[in-house]
């Protein structure tokens, strides 16, 4: 058949139709996963971890954690800092993950690091690559393909479930049930545990595998009650918590070190540094830069993720403008249907009237006045974490609801909402990672991350599974009606125009190579046209052969109208279908068509068949709708239960927080500590504000809005006063701290403004 087919194609070398030239291969030969294929040409393993692609095991709803850790790992500066703080530990002294216990296949972890998983394994047979579609290969659905529902998810070779199982089976699995904190000279914390994970990934000989972050989750759950349940957690919340924990752990360490050195050296340069650290004059982190030795650079999280917001408040009575700076580690923006990230950010900085209950205390007029307020970005972060507020409290339903708004995000971004005096206001950002939430509501669902790696393009990280994806895939998560998977957190990192152009050039080159390779291998040039079609080329011929009776109507419809139904049972037909389904009809085949029936007859027959099929499909659709409704109903019930549980747990957490906040002076672990910590480090509190208040905020969200806005004017007063005085006393600073979050609350909930020109 190959030769038959080739008769028709050879004159069209560029044609994806040649895709169907079957590459004769032993059907039982091991098929590398798409990731393995991607890494097939990789050179020696680098020691910066940029060429490691590990999945993370899911211990039941820990996808929020997995997806965030992946995003952080692939932030090059963040990874470097984690590894190098306090110092790069020599590999010898570190405990390694015990030999992969769950390595239950015959693949040994490869010795040369060159994906050992390429070695034969029966478990991989069924995973074919997208580069070997052949119309007659029974299971040759591309690895990137969909899983049809209805079948058990794990049975389907293309289902994520199956792939995850496979990834776990293939290993190597890094069992992170140990810790090295003593080797780092630090006490055990989320940071050391994160460092353990990063170190283990980087030092492992294999390029791919699965991490089991036992210890990390253990510490997380020990320290934070809200993560103890097996419930679905908010990935953004977790990101904020993790960043703040890392800040705190790093701080604590340097504090200890600092006090030690003060004692020992009577206050050398280090002491001065620590002093500088402890005097929190403003929220802005001094640029610690590379001038300090890595041991001393404790501000790197801030350097990467922190930016400064300036809120300008103009009193409408005396026209006096007061400014106040707040630090942020991420920006949470409200969403509107059919908008863009750019627009969300602009809305974030739009002017807001402070009136009625929200009046502003003006120092000049000395009283509550109406005022205009706007928040602009004064210092741009190097990594901009953008949280799209997809979970919104709806009053009529008394709970959080997921917004499916279509919000488009560009691959590159600049910020419009900067202050006039901002440094580098035109900074160019590139999208490097997105956290995708899949599900109908905030209390359940799944998180995955899609990340641009240094030199391997975009990858999908879905717990244990890691899969290369096309750049266009990133745009699948804009949201919209009936789109369950939406981007939830976007990570933009700073870049330059030159870097951008270089990358685009490389992409163009890669596409060209792919295209020419595709031609050579008889594979369609790109997934764009072809990925869509491949399942067809696989299904139909088989289908045709096995169930000739049932497939008839479908076939007829395949080639509708005047095309060739009579050929259906001819041998060449599968090929033709393959060709058609790659989007390229095979006109060369037309002479082969027999004219058994007159066209009219055919057309008539087809019409009938089509009508029948339509009816069938409509019924199926109806059924599906019913099912959908049912499922939604179930979701709703489930959600309500979960909500109740969540509210309870949060309440307890809040209570506990208050208790610890009241009693504990310095001690206490976790986020609550910050409330009560001495003022020395209060500048860091600014950045941690959102996390400290988040749990309260969340439970607060479940209260009606007006209750929330109530305390605002009270908060406003001391806050602005403090700012004017530039006070570095601790007590009012605490007041300052409270304010931004409160304001933010109102920002997100109470704000209803229409565009300027409607």
């Amino acid at each position, binding site marked *: 058949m190959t030769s038959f087919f080739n008769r028709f194609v050879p004159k069209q070398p560029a044609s994806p139709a040649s895709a169907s030239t079957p590459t004769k291969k032993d059907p039982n030969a091991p098929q590398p996963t798409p990731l393995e294929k991607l890494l097939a040409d990789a050179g020696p393993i680098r020691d910066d971890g940029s060429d490691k692609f590990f999945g993370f095991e899911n211990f039941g709803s820990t996808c929020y954690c997995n997806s965030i850790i992946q995003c952080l790992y692939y932030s090059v500066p963040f990874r470097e800092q984690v590894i190098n703080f306090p110092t790069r530990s020599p590999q010898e002294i570190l405990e390694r993950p015990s030999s992969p216990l769950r390595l239950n296949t015959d693949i040994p972890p490869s010795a040369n690091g060159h994906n050992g998983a390429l070695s034969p394994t029966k478990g991989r047979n069924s995973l074919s690559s997208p580069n070997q579609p052949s119309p007659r290969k029974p299971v040759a659905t591309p690895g990137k393909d969909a899983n049809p529902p209805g079948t058990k998810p794990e049975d389907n070779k293309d289902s994520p479930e199956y792939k995850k199982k496979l990834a776990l089976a293939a290993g190597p699995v890094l069992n992170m049930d140990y810790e090295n904190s003593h080797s780092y000279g630090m006490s055990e914390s989320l940071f050391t545990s994160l460092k353990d994970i990063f170190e283990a990934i980087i030092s492992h000989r294999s390029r791919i595998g699965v991490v089991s972050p036992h210890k990390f989750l253990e510490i997380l759950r020990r320290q934070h009650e809200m993560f103890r349940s097996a419930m679905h957690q908010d990935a953004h919340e977790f990101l904020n918590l993790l960043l703040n924990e890392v800040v705190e752990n790093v701080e604590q360490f340097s504090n200890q070190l600092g006090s030690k050195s003060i004692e020992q050296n009577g206050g050398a340069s280090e002491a001065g540094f620590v002093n500088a650290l402890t005097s929190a004059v403003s929220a802005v982190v001094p640029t610690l830069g590379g001038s300090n030795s890595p041991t001393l650079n404790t501000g790197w999280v801030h350097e990467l993720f922190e930016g400064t917001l300036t809120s300008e408040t103009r009193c409408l009575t005396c026209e006096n403008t007061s400014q106040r700076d707040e630090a942020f580690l991420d920006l949470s923006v409200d969403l509107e249907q059919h908008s863009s990230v750019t627009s969300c950010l602009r809305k974030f900085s739009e002017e807001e009237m402070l009136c009625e209950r929200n009046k502003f205390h003006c120092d000049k007029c000395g009283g509550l006045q109406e005022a205009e307020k706007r928040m602009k970005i004064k210092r741009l972060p190097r990594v901009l974490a953008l949280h799209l507020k997809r979970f919104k409290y709806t009053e009529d339903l008394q709970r959080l609801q997921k917004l499916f708004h279509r919000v488009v995000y560009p691959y590159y971004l600049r910020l419009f909402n900067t202050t006039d005096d901002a440094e580098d206001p035109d900074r160019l*950002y590139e999208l490097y990672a997105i956290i995708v939430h899949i599900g109908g509501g905030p209390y359940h669902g799944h998180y995955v991350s899609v990340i641009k790696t240094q030199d391997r393009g975009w990858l999908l990280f879905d717990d244990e599974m890691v899969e290369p994806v096309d750049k266009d895939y990133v745009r699948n998560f804009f949201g919209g009606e009936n789109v369950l998977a939406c981007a939830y957190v976007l990570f933009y990192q700073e870049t330059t125009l030159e870097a951008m152009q270089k990358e685009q050039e490389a992409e163009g080159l890669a596409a060209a190579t792919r295209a020419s390779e595709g031609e050579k291998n008889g594979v369609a040039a790109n997934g764009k046209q072809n*990925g869509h079609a491949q399942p067809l080329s696989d299904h139909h011929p088989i289908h045709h052969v096995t169930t000739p009776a049932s497939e008839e109507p479908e076939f007829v419809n395949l080639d509708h109208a005047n095309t060739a139904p009579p050929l259906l049972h001819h041998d060449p037909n599968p090929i033709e279908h393959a060709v058609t389904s790659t989007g390229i009809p095979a006109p060369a085949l037309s002479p082969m068509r027999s004219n058994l029936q007159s066209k009219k007859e055919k057309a008539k027959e087809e019409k009938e068949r089509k009508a029948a099929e339509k009816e069938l499909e409509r019924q199926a659709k109806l059924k599906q709708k019913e099912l959908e409704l049912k499922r939604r109903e179930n979701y709703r019930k489930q959600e309500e239960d979960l909500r109740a549980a969540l509210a309870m747990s949060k309440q307890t957490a809040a209570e506990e927080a208050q208790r610890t906040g009241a009693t504990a002076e310095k001690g206490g672990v976790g986020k609550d500590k910050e409330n009560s910590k001495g003022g020395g480090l209060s500048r860091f509190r600014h950045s941690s504000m959102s996390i400290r208040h988040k749990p309260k905020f969340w439970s607060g969200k479940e209260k009606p809005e007006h209750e929330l806005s109530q305390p605002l004017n009270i908060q406003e007063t001391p806050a602005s006063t403090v700012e004017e005085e530039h006070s570095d006393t601790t007590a009012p600073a605490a007041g300052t701290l409270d304010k931004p979050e409160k304001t933010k609350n109102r920002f997100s909930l109470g704000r209803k403004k229409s565009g300027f*020109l409607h």
Partner: protein
Amino acid sequence: MFVLPPPPRYPAAAYGQPGQPLIETNNILTHPTGPEHQLVVGEGTYVLRDALLLATPPPHPSEAPVHNNNPLATTLSPPTAGTKISVLVLAPRQQSYPQLFRLTTNNSTRSQIPASIQESPHEGQSQASDTASHPPMTNGVGSLDGSNAPAFGESNPVLSLPNGKDLKDPLKRRKPKSNIVKSNSSFVSRVIPHEALAKRLQEHDPKGIYVFANVNRAMQWLDLSSPTKEEHMTKILFTKAHPLCHDIHPTTKGPNHVDIVLGFSTGDIIWYEPMSQKYVRINKNGAINPSAVTEIRWLPHSENLFIAAHADGTLVVYDKEKEDAPFVAEEESPSSERLNEEQKKVSLKIKKSVNSKNQKSNPVACWKVSNSKINALAISPDSRHLAVVSEDGSFRIIDYLKEQLLDLYNSYYGGIMCVCWSPDGRYVVTGGQDDLVSIWSLEDSMLVARCQGHNSWVTAVAFDPWRCDERNYRIGSVGEDCRLLLWDFSVGMLHRPRAASVRHRGSVASATLKVSRTRTDTSSNSRLRSNSNLTSGSMAGEGEDTVHPVEPRARTAMLPPVMAKSIDEHPLTWLGFEEDVILTTCATGHIRTWDRPKEGASSDDGAVSTTSASASAGTGSG
């Protein structure tokens, strides 16, 4: 063991396309009224005449099983495009209102203003008479009155040969070969002509508007002036390929003949003649270029040649009469080899020159323009230049007659999605993923203003030639935010942007640029230049004359819209200005017709007031 279960049937709600119907439905015409269906602008109120929802065809059975309920499925769906329109008016176009264009009244002004076309640096060769007689452009298609611009490929004797035989009977247009109704090609799924097509053709008012619109895998021919406009004239369903773009030949059109080219998601192109229902397929199976056709335009001064932008960043000129042949890039000309690396990067990669001796088959010419998808292109009104925008955010001005890249600009950020020329060819307007409409001046080779107002990506921009004159321009734009925005900008405003911008302008268009190009400096220009030399030193670099740096935000004038209105529930995809209406379309197939303000609403006054409003607004923001 190799038996695969038959693909299950999924609900029609395709990924990203909810509610796609399963059965063939009819177009639906509605007449919404009320203030929410009116556009209030200075010159008066545009009223929604009607909204026509084109029926989205059910997926071809061969496509149905692809539905996928895994939201993470890494299969990419083929490129699709929202509904776009090609407008056809058979009667010769009336030139727009003279009082708006001031063609006759403002001769004095004209002499003071730098005469548009020949003032432009790229167009030094064009004659003054050309400019003076330059009529307003219609429908965004390049006006064909740049009559002394040479036709593409004129210099190549091999190319001009085959046209000789047509001259025997110049009035008789050549038709494509195959009948689309009787075709047995699997490319075409079904053709549904209207029952009374001949009658409707006869009844058609030659001044009325025909439109050709793509929706999903269908192409519909509609008569918008007909009382039964919701009934299509002809509907063509394609099997798998989605038509993404189309263009009507502006000069060969007539009551018995219309040349249309359609570009498809599969890379195929169809030359279609709707009156005789004949067609020809070009770039069959992607023989020449396998990537999707994202934009297609007939070349001016040529009956046969058209240019197609492919998704891989290639521009290909095809001849509608020629056969496909497997295409291998031809040797680069020695002149391009002499260029150094850096220059090569910014020059056009000519894979096949129009001057190639091998012109027996398609393509006529082929240029690799960009590394990423070309989103749109537009031909200048003087028929000499192409404006090409791509997904990587680049915007290029190409002299396609000489096959040279003249200018390369970049968006503020993100891809550029649409582009169009001002009727006089002096400005190019782009819209993109930075939510901005950007106005570029070709005379100064610089960005003159950014228009901020969209809440999402800008998908289409167009000039309203009926509200443009030498000083004032009306631009319309639509976007993913479902909104239509109108902008007025005036030359006066644009020539005095922010103080900072004046000082720094030289950094963008420094005096050393374009030595080869003739430039008639006006006094103001030279003043600016001498000024700018002080600051432009730092910007020197490779490819300086063609590559222009991104302008910082602080230096650029920001222009606010004069009207912004949400007009649809779905992202908008196309916009066009006609003599008495504005047409908009959306991603799901709505065609909305907006009547211009009625006569007697003193359009003169309106024009004046909007102009001044825009000027003050501009300075206010600038």
